[in-house]
C-alpha cells in the first residue's frame, strides 16, 4: 500500500461546502447537513470573519517572530476552518485541551491573542486562566493533553454534568491533537480510558498531513478515523478545510458526549500550509507542487467563494473591506500588546512552583533576589 492508504481518498469524508464553494445540503449519512442548514448568510459571514482574524493574527505573529519579538511561532495557517468550525460547535461550559497550534480555537473561546503570544515570546510557560475560558494551557509534549482531557471528562461525569438534558449544564471536553500525536501511546491510552468509562470526550484530530518533516505514512498505516472502532466508539473523517462540515460533525460529537453517549473521534482532514514552526524549513522535505495544490484549496478562499456567489457583489466587497479593516486593527493591537509585554521579574520563576510553603524554593528565591540586587549595585 502506498500513500493513498491514509490520504484524502482513502476514507469517506463529510463535506458540506465543496472546494468550489457550493453548499451541500443533503446526502450524508450522519445527518450533518441538517445540523447546519439553519446557518444563513450572516452566520457564514461570521465564520469567515473569524477565520480571517485568525489568519491575520497568524501572519502578524510570524512577522513578529521574524523581527525578533517572538522566540518562535507555530502557524495554524490552513487549519482555520477546522479550528473556527470546532470552536463554533462548543457550548460555553465545554472545555478544550489544546496542543500548541489551536490559536483559532483559543480566539474562538475569547482568549486575547496577546495572551497566546506570551508563551511564544518567552515571558511565561502558561499565560491564561483556563477556568475563565474553558481553554486549557497549551501542551508541547505531544499527546499528553488527551489524557488530561479524558480525566477532566471523568470529573465532569462525577459532577453529574452529562446526560441531564440541561443544555446549560451538560458538558463536553474537546481533546485536540495532530496526526503525529496519533503515534504516541498516551493518545491510544486516552482513547482506551474514554471508551472504557464512556467519558464525554471529543477526540479532535487535525490531520494536517505533516508531523514536522514526516508525512502521515510515518504515523499511521490505516486512515485514522477507522481507529475509533477498535476503541469502541465512532470515528468520522470530515473535510477540515470546510468550516460548515467541521462545525456539524464536531457539534454532533459534542452533543453525543453531553448526552452521556460517550466519546467520538473526529479526524479533520486539512493541511499545514506553513512550516511546522518558524524554525522549520519545508523545502527540505516536501515539494512546492504539493504546497501549491493546497494553497488552491485554502479554507478561507472556499468560504469566500461561497459568500461571493451567495450575496450581492457590492455588499460582499464592503463585507470583505470591513473584515480586512477589523483584522488589521486586531493585528495592530496584538503587535503593540506583544511589544509592550514586560520581561518577568527574575524571581518570578519561584512563584507557584508549589502551593504550600517549600523551604528550598524560598531559600533559593532569597539567594537570587540578593544576587540580582547586588548586580544592580555593581
Amino acid at each position, binding site marked *: 500500500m502506498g500513500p493513498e492508504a491514509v490520504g484524502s481518498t482513502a476514507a469517506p469524508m463529510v463535506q458540506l461546502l465543496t472546494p468550489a464553494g457550493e453548499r451541500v445540503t443533503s446526502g450524508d449519512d450522519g445527518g450533518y447537513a441538517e445540523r447546519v442548514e439553519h446557518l444563513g448568510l450572516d452566520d457564514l459571514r461570521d465564520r469567515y470573519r473569524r477565520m480571517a482574524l485568525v489568519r491575520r493574527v497568524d501572519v502578524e505573529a510570524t512577522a513578529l517572530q521574524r523581527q525578533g519579538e517572538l522566540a518562535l511561532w507555530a502557524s495554524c495557517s490552513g487549519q482555520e476552518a477546522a479550528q473556527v468550525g470546532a470552536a463554533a460547535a462548543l457550548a460555553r461550559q465545554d472545555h478544550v485541551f489544546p496542543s500548541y497550534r489551536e490559536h483559532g480555537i483559543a480566539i474562538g473561546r475569547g482568549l486575547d491573542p496577546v495572551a497566546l503570544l506570551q508563551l511564544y515570546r518567552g515571558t511565561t510557560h502558561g499565560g491564561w486562566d483556563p*477556568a475563565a475560558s474553558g481553554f486549557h494551557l497549551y*501542551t508541547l509534549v505531544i499527546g499528553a493533553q488527551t489524557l488530561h482531557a479524558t480525566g477532566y471528562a471523568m470529573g465532569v461525569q*462525577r459532577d453529574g454534568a452529562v446526560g441531564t438534558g440541561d443544555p446549560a449544564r451538560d458538558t463536553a471536553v474537546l481533546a485536540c491533537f495532530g496526526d503525529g500525536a496519533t503515534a504516541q501511546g498516551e493518545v491510544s*491510552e486516552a482513547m482506551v480510558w474514554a471508551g472504557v468509562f464512556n467519558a464525554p470526550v471529543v477526540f479532535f484530530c487535525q490531520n494536517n498531513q505533516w508531523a514536522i518533516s514526516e508525512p502521515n505514512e510515518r504515523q499511521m498505516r490505516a486512515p485514522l478515523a477507522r481507529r475509533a472502532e477498535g476503541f469502541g466508539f465512532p470515528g468520522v473523517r470530515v473535510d477540515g478545510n470546510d468550516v460548515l462540515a467541521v462545525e456539524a460533525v464536531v457539534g454532533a460529537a459534542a452533543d453525543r458526549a453531553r448526552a452521556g453517549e460517550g466519546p467520538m473521534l473526529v479526524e479533520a482532514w486539512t493541511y499545514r500550509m506553513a512550516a511546522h514552526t518558524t524554525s522549520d524549513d519545508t523545502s527540505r522535505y516536501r515539494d512546492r507542487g504539493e504546497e501549491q495544490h493546497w494553497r488552491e484549496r485554502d479554507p478561507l478562499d472556499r468560504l469566500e467563494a461561497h459568500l461571493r456567489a451567495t450575496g450581492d457583489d457590492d455588499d460582499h466587497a464592503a463585507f470583505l473591506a470591513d473584515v480586512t479593516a477589523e483584522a488589521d486593527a486586531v493585528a495592530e493591537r496584538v503587535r503593540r500588546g506583544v511589544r509592550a509585554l514586560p520581561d518577568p521579574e527574575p524571581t518570578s520563576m519561584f512563584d*507557584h512552583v508549589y502551593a504550600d510553603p517549600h523551604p528550598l524554593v524560598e531559600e533559593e528565591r532569597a539567594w537570587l533576589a540578593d544576587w540580582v540586587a547586588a548586580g544592580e549595585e555593581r
Partner: protein
Amino acid sequence: MNAPGHALTAAAAPRSRAERAPHERPAVHSTPRTTETTLAKAITAGLRRAMEEDEKVLLVGEDIGRLGGVFRVTDGLQKDFGEDRVVDSPLSEAGIVGTAVGLALRGYRPVCEIQFDGFIFPAFSEIVTQLAKMGARLGGAGRLPVVLRVPYGGGIGAVEHHSESPEALFAHTPGLRVVTPATPQDAYWMTQQAVRSDDPVMVFEPKRRYWDKGAVDLVGPLDAAPPLHAARVVRPGDDLTLVAYGPTVRLAVEAAAIAATEGTSVEVVDLRSVSPLDTATVEASVARTGRCVVVHEAPTFLGLGAELAARITERCFYALEAPVLRVGGFAVPYPAARIEEHYLPDVDRVLDAVDRSMAS
C-alpha cells in the same frame, strides 16, 4: 504481580554482628488510645479517613477495587465508597497519572496507586513534564492536588522491576513532593497529609515494611502529627548521625543498637521526606556528633546520600570529624532475588561505615 509474602523476613534478618545484639524497633509515640496495626493497614485507615473527610478524594489504580490492591492496601474501600471513588483503572500507568491531572483540574483530589516501583516509568513523562510543572504554568490559576502512592524497595524476593528505589529521580524533579513513611503511625499521618496538600505528593511506601506492626493513634486529630516534611530523631546519640528513610530506618535503628553494645552512641534520623529535605534537623545533629552516615537502598551514585553529603559538608564543614559516608545499592540494575541480600545495605555494611567514620 502479587507480592510473594513468604519472603518478607528474608533480607531483614540481622546477620553476624547483628545476631549478637538485641533487636530494636523505631520508637513510636504511644498513648492509651493507640491501636496496634501494620503499616499497610495504617495506610488503609489513612485513605479511609481522607475519603470520609473530603468527597472529592478518589482512588485510582490497577486492581485496587475488587481485589483491594496487590498488597491489599485499598482492601474494602470500593465496597464502602463505590466504584466511582475507588476506580479499577485500565492497565495504563500514563493513563492513571494523565487522567489524574485532568481530574485535579476539575477539582478532584485523585490518589493514584502505582502497583510497583518499576512500573512507574510508563507514567514518567506525565509525572515529570505535566504533573510537576502544571502548577507553576498555571501561575496560581489552579493547583494539582494529586497523590501518587508507590510501593518501593527490595527485600521481598520478587522478580524483576518489583524491588526498585527510584525516589531520587522524582526528588530531582521540581514541583513534586516526595515522602516516605517508615512506621505505621507515620504511614497513617503522612497519607492523609499528602491528600490534604495542594501540591503533587509522591508517597513511596516501603513495601517490605508493609507488615511491620506498630502503635497508631487512629482517633486523634491530624494536627497532632509532625509536619509532612519534618525529619525526626528516632534514636538519640552523641557520636555519629545515621540518616535513613523508608525501609532503611529499621535497619539503622538495629545498627545503632549494636553499635551501642560496642560503645558507639549513634543518633538515628528518619528523614521522612526526601523532597523537600529537612536538612536543618540533620545539620543540628551533625553539628553535635561531627560524623554522618547516610543509608538507602537506591544506588549511592547521585542518590539522596550524595545530596545530603554535599549539603552537610557545605554547612557543617568545621564540625565534621570525618567525611560523610554513604551506604546504599550498587550502580547496577537491581539484581535477581537470590542475590539481592548482597545488594541491599544490611546491618554489617552500616556498621562498617560507622566504624570507618569513627576511625577517621
